């Protein structure tokens, strides 16, 4: 909580700025709409957080999201009764991709940057190979409900976000989170204390895969089938996590702050949009703000690229 304070403060300022321009934002419906929009990235960032805090990267989440949506559409093909089996299958796929990422990273000692870059290529190639180049089929209404519908006035995605956020915070307080954090901080010391460091990292990758699945379900539900859903999400998620003050390289930062970082990023987009800095220069502003925020918040962050000693697989 203490570590999340600076980013929460930034977030509050941004939200206030939004509300200033757009008073509708202060109404429950307006605010819920914002949370709903932010939910997929926040969940994805929470997943990415586990990987980053364990000292690794997951660049494959964007293409995993795309793949999951394309797979869902083709398998469901508009058939309502296929919804739940396919949802289950998607979760399995997400976990499996995480498992493969994790196993190759830990057991074959390939830097995760490369593993997940490879996975990005493989996923995007394979899914379109399978679907013939463009998405086919259609999502069912039942599937779409998670991203579109709601429980009364509260969108499902907001509820899912709350549940996912609570689960992530709980996980980081549990033994798993504490040992994962120690692993990211000093892998060798953790291993010599009996931590199953490989398993912990593999779980982290699987959590990231799971988060990508949930994100895919929410995004696919929100907007339907598209081949672009996941484009660039990996960089947004990593940026969000780092904005939350989580150190690349591992062992430091809180999951709440990472999620707040994602909200901040989303609020930033909204704000830029509201102020009419749409389109072109938006990226420039975004770039400047990200650098500034990280520079301001990260005076003590290590800036080297996974240079920890005893980290055998960082050497290729």
């Amino acid at each position, binding site marked *: 909580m203490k570590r999340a304070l600076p980013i929460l403060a930034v977030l509050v300022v941004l939200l206030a700025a939004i509300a200033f321009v757009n008073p509708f934002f202060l109404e429950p419906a307006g605010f819920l709409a914002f949370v709903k929009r932010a939910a997929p990235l926040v969940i994805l960032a929470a997943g990415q957080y586990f990987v980053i805090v364990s000292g690794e990267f997951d660049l494959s989440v964007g293409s995993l999201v795309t793949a999951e949506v394309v797979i869902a559409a083709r398998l469901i093909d508009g058939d309502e009764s296929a919804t739940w089996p396919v949802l289950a299958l998607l979760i399995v796929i997400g976990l499996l991709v995480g498992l493969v990422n994790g196993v190759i990273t830990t057991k074959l000692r390939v830097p995760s940057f490369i593993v997940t870059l490879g996975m990005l290529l493989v996923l995007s190639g394979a899914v379109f190979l399978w679907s013939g180049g463009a998405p086919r089929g259609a999502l069912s209404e039942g599937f779409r409900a998670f991203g579109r519908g709601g429980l009364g006035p509260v969108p499902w995605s907001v509820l899912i976000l709350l549940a996912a956020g609570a689960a992530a915070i709980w996980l980081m307080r549990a033994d798993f989170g504490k040992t994962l954090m120690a692993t990211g901080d000093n892998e060798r010391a953790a291993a*010599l204390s009996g931590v199953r460091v490989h398993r912990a990292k593999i779980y982290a990758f699987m959590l990231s895969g799971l988060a990508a699945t949930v994100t895919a379900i929410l995004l696919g539900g929100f907007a339907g089938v598209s081949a672009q859903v996941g484009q660039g999400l990996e960089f947004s998620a990593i940026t969000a996590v780092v904005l939350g003050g989580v150190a690349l390289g591992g062992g430091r930062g809180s999951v709440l702050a990472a999620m707040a970082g994602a909200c901040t990023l989303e609020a930033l987009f909204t704000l830029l949009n509201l102020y009419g800095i749409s389109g072109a220069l938006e990226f420039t502003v975004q770039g400047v703000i990200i650098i500034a925020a990280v520079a301001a918040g990260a005076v003590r962050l290590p800036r080297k690229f996974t240079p920890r000693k005893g980290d055998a697989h960082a050497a290729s």
Partner: protein
Amino acid sequence: MLSMRGIGKSFLGVRVLSGIDLDVAAGEVHAVVGENGAGKSTLMKIICGVHAPDEGTIELDGRPVSFGHPLEAQRSGIAIIYQEFNLLPERTVAENVFLGREPVRRGLVDRAAMEQATARLLDELGEGSFGPRDAVKRLSVAQQQVVEIVKALSVNARLVVMDEPSAALAEHEVELLYRLIGRLRERGVAVLYISHRLREVFDLADRVTVLKDGSRVTTRPIAEVTSDELIRLMVGRDLGTYFPPRSPGAGETRLSLRGAGNHKLRDIDLELRAGEIVGIAGLQGSGRSELAKAIFGAEPFTEGEMTPSRPRSVREGVALGIGLVTEDRKAEGLALRQSVRDNALLVARAVGARGRDGVRDLLERVRLAPPRQDQEVRYLSGGNQQKVVLAKWMTMAPRVLLFDEPTRGVDVGAKAAIHDLMRELANDGMAIMMISSELPELIGMSDRVVVLRDGRIAGTLPAGPSEEAIMRLAAAEVVS
């Protein structure tokens, strides 16, 4: 030649040094001693331009200097052997020695000159076991320390700072170091020498400065202090007897090895019994650490028997009730950016064990001072860090605890506390194995000393052996 006045330094608002005055004359060996965290390394780093002092002045030959970067200190003729290892494993010896000061000819690096100069320095040191073109990653710890020394010498410095240069050296290598320092002194080079081994201080130094809690206690010619007095100045109290009394007798066998071996070890027969402290002696590279890691399951035995059973992994070792206090606590023992509490609970969490409420009591029991649980471990002094490592294992109430150099780089006060604790644990029925390169400690603490040589047991000596007896077994072929 070097004169410092009123040096002060704070890290993140914590005062580490205040009002330090220090003078070093040409051709003098000036020892700096003090407890862990007294500020010795910090002071040295200020001299070498790593840290800038918050206050105070430094004069070199009467001219005030202020170094913004190690490079500037280097250019003023100051060289340093850092406490931490400071080499690039992927590069060659010569490249490391001339790192940042590569000789150039017509704008290009002159490899030949670099390698010749390195070879000459290695020769001077009588080091023939490796050459300038060897990659540092293939050298042993002791050889790497020699490279560090060569690196400092190659600067042709007027002042050489040595921050615990002997910590990784075995006795005969320390001899080499002695001779080297003697030669530097003859050339009129000043040496600032830091060590926790008081014997070295008395052997080498002309004067000694004692630091305590970031302040200078005194500076005296070495002839005017005794060992006990020096300890009192450092710790602030008399330490009395060095070692706690031995326990009356050993209990049941907790662990036994029959013909155990792996890639480094051969035919190890060993028994560890409840209530007993077994000391392990040997030269650098004799396989002491390997033995501890093999018993623990980190680098398992591949042959022979071990009862109750042979662990194939760390977790199996932990499940057998074995704990290992590693020799390098920063690299292998602690997650430095996590809190004291999280580190103390690491083993318990890793194996999903209960009993986490007792952490506070445990931290008090290991005499962590002050026992703040939420502090990040990296801000603790070496001795306190070692106590956290101990607490980490005690949460599991292990049946066998292996200590690898438990007091390396630990000050005398913390050392005594750790010794007391080890004996206390043994008296409570734990079986303890202790590796140490410091023979007095090994002799004082052990109920039995097992000497390793080349991965085999060279012999076992009863309680209270002489140093000569140990060395004869450890270095048989050197003597013959």
